[in-house]
């Protein structure tokens, strides 16, 4: 039996196998090891988004020049970041500074995985009045420890298409933080006038993420929003809160001025719809600004505060980093965090136009600089109107229960109150951690 393979002797085969092993060794030798052990001061840094080409990279470079510390940025992506973070912490050699989901801060703090930065704050006699108070206090734990560090915050505002307002002859929303002519009913009226079914153009988009749940419930008179202050109760299912969510849902189910829930299931679809001029007003985070700046070319857009009801506040995601307790270079890590929250660091971060730096002096310089949105300063103004987001031991677990359940309400099949009451006990069980 002759085959091509049969020409290969055992010796040649084994030689080939040895070659493969050697090549494999070569491939694996590409490892760079962990930075941070040799020579002068150094530290490792992990973010869940690309740092390269962003102001964060510039701010880190400026810190390197000022401090003489070498910062090694490790690549990571948003997908599976939480798994990576948990693995690195459990593995015992995490990076010195790492981004952390704000929902995890309480849980990780209670497990003792995060370094308390309070001794550093006290030792350096840091003037904390230079920071936006609500967000600076976010990582404060019940025992007084300060287990994470907020670099900035991304408030949510109403993004609106100026051209669509003008075409429909509808007065523009306010340019200051005011509810004058900008209440929930004003918003609803404008949304109706801006909706054009023939063009598949919707007047508004509000119900999208947990930021809307917190903002609209608090603005409707809720004292707590989604969770109680101690993080043990699911207050979103209470009557005021359910009413707020029902109002947002009715924009679709009754008024037909908001895209149906089924049309919003694709990743980034809401941004695409806004950029295509299919949505006139959208409640979205500051983090959306860079995308809109890059993508929207053929109309003018701007931002306005959320419409007012009992209150006129907004929820803000926070950009949180932490120093794991097992970090090899905690002192250098603290120096970097302190720099990034300083006026100098904040001014660099501000250039990205994606979040408001926590440093108030840096945030005050938030200006359009010839780019949309013209009233970008409202993102800095938002610092005075933030809702406090209550932390729990298991926010992610709670969300995994109640958010899918809300689909039934958003698809106009059941009232919001019924859906939330139905999952309340399960959610509160999950909140026990």
């Amino acid at each position: 039996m002759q085959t091509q393979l049969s020409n290969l002797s055992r010796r040649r085969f084994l030689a080939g196998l040895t070659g493969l092993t050697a090549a494999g060794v070569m491939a694996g030798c590409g490892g760079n090891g962990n930075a941070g052990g040799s020579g002068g001061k150094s530290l490792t840094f992990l973010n869940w988004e690309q740092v390269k080409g962003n102001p964060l990279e510039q701010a880190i470079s400026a810190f390197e020049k000022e401090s003489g510390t070498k910062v090694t940025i490790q690549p990571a992506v948003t997908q599976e970041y939480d798994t990576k973070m948990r693995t690195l912490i459990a593995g015992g050699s995490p990076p010195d500074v790492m981004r952390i989901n704000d929902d995890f801060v309480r849980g990780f703090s209670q497990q003792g995985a995060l370094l308390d930065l309070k001794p550093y704050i006290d030792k350096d006699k840091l003037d904390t009045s230079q920071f936006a108070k609500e967000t600076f206090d976010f990582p404060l734990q019940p025992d007084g420890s300060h287990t994470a560090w907020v670099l900035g915050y991304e408030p949510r505002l109403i993004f609106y298409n100026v051209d669509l307002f003008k075409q429909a002859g509808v007065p523009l929303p306010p340019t200051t933080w005011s509810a004058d002519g900008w209440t929930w009913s004003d918003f609803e009226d404008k949304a109706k006038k801006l909706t054009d079914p023939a063009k598949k153009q919707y007047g508004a988009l509000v119900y999208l993420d947990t930021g809307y749940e917190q903002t609209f419930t608090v603005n409707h008179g809720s004292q707590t929003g989604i969770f109680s202050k101690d993080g043990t109760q699911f207050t979103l299912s209470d009557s005021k809160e359910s009413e707020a969510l029902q109002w947002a849902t009715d924009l679709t189910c009754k008024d037909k001025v908001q895209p149906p829930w089924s049309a919003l299931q694709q990743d980034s679809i809401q941004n695409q719809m806004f950029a295509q001029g299919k949505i006139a007003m959208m409640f979205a985070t500051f983090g959306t600004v860079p995308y809109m700046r890059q993508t929207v070319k053929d109309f003018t857009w701007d931002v306005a505060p959320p419409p007012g009801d009992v209150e006129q506040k907004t929820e803000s995601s926070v950009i949180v980093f932490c120093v794991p307790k097992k970090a090899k270079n905690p002192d250098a890590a603290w120096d970097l965090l302190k720099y990034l929250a300083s006026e100098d660091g904040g001014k660099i971060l501000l250039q990205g136009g994606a979040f408001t730096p926590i440093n108030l002096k840096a945030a005050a310089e938030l200006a359009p600089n010839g780019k949309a949105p013209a009233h970008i300063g409202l993102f800095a103004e938002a610092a005075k109107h933030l809702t406090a987001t209550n932390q729990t031991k298991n926010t992610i677990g709670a969300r995994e229960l109640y958010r899918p359940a809300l689909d039934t309400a958003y698809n106009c099949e059941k009232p919001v109150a019924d859906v939330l009451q139905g999952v309340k006990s399960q959610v509160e069980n999950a909140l026990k951690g």
Partner: protein
Amino acid sequence: MRIVGKTSQYVVMTLFAVAFLAPLVWMISASLRPEAKVLSSPPKFLPTDTQWSNYGEVFDLIPVFLWNSVKLAAFNVVGILIVASMAGYAFARLRFAGRDIAFMVLLATSIIPGIAYLIPQYIVFQHIGWVDTQYPLWVPKVLTPVFATFLMRQSFLTIPNELEDAGKIDGASTFGIYWRIMLPQTKPALAAIGVFTFLESWNDLFGPLIYITSENLQTLPVALAQFQGEYFTKISLLMAGATISVVPVIAVFLFAQRYFIQGITMTGMKG
């Protein structure tokens, strides 16, 4: 009557072909559109304002990642084919104490989900200095190819004993019989395993993400995932990257197509 039957058969098959091709066509179309016009309702398949610059942007970013993916896919495919074919031959043809129990144990290991041993495995790799190297992305896979071993065993079982006996009469060693007589009979199974292994390695996002911390060692799926941010995704660039990444997969499948289909239909005929 026969013509009607044949025509309807072709119509149904054409509809299936269009349904299967639609996502691929949409991906290519999206990769050539301006970002603001990627998602539309109803979906559009032909770009009106072709943006070749999307590919330019992606090509600037991915060469290192592409090379790492190619290298790892090659190590995984070659390594698994060697190890699985030897193990499969041993389980199918060699007689030794505890063979069947060992095979059952081997199959049982695949029941444990990877996420369950992720952290212990990470700690082990850290202790032996493998974190931030490419070893974790191919050595464990090559040394424990459960599915491939199963497939190869089934394939070896379908070969008549007479071939092996003839080799023995002619004085061939055990390795000689495996290498010169038996292995060439299993080309379809080898092709199927090769394609599956290539796909698994090529699309692996999780492994590189967990074990690699240096950018110059990262792979293509990680590069593509970087187009996805917390609040928005650059879909046009993501689709351009995905189009580039899918070309080697199609090439490998076309190359091994004939054997691949035989491989997955023939193995398992004899248990």
